[in-house]
């Protein structure tokens, strides 16, 4: 990959490390006694903290996943750079849009 893609990959990874740890801890606690909407929304609704946390997570994940997937497409599928970049941009957009929509759904609504 180009240096620019590499830098974005590593920076988004470093940013996500603490976010993932928090997310896993929250998940382990939340899954105790079964999952419920009330439990999730009770934590996230109206919360600027969780809104900011998850928004940052979504943006970083969109960058990180798309660069990674582009590499897999070029290296393991052997498709062209253009195809890889096209699919990567699409995936980034999908993650960004659906992700921020989900954040909105659990924080604002």
């Amino acid at each position: 990959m180009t240096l620019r893609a590499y830098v974005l990959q590593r920076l988004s990874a470093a940013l996500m490390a603490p976010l993932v740890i928090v997310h896993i801890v929250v998940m382990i606690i939340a899954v105790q006694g079964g999952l419920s909407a009330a439990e999730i929304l009770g934590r996230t609704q109206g919360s600027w903290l969780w809104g900011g946390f998850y928004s940052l997570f979504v943006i970083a994940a969109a960058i990180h996943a798309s660069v990674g997937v582009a590499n897999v497409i070029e290296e393991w599928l052997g498709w062209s750079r253009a195809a890889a970049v096209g699919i990567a941009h699409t995936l980034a957009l999908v993650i960004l849009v659906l992700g921020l929509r989900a954040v909105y759904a659990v924080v604002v609504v």
Partner: protein
Amino acid sequence: MPASMLKVQIWRGEAQGEFRDYEVPRQDSQTILDVVTYIQRKLDPTLSYRFACRVGMCGSCAMTVNGRPRWTCRTHISRVLEDGFVRIEPLRNLPIIKDLATDLVPFFEKWQGARGRFEGSRTRDDDFSTVLPSEPRRAAASAAIECINCAVCYSACDVVNWREEYLGPAALNRAWAAYNDERDNNPLGVLKAVAAGGGCGSCHAHQSCVEHCPVELNPTESIAGLKRVSLQAWLKGDLR
């Protein structure tokens, strides 16, 4: 078949070809190069292969032995035999000229592509540079400088196999040595050369290069160094 005979399978042909079987008498002190040489001299004079020093200094005899790239003059058959069987192929990731001989031109073109050469600015009229061997940058350069371009690491690397444009472990290792040579007058030029699509960013730290290097070099470490320095240079704006 008596236990004193080896079952040897060798690639014959170019990109298209076939494996052919040979039986070679086993000796006590026998390297893969000895086996190949025996076959060419006694069994099949049409076999093509490459060697030079035959004492583990030049790297010319590198071939793929039971799936792994090795120097055949330094590979004792007892280390690689699997049930008395050994398969010998040309080095992977390089065009095959004939049988066991590969074309190393692409390897050297990538060496140049990574700016794996020294560019100095002093003339004979200038004083010598004083470089302490213990200085960290010199130590880093010295650790990487012993490469003799045998292409074993290049052959072991899967990213080289997957990406045509990837410069590869040897070229990038040499670039790191050039970057750390304080007598070099254009270290940023090295970083620019390795920042492109086929550069250091493409290394996934498989470390097959480290596992196979006969001189025990560590291209992954060198490439990690290039990544570190390139990251800083990119953030500073020197590499956009």
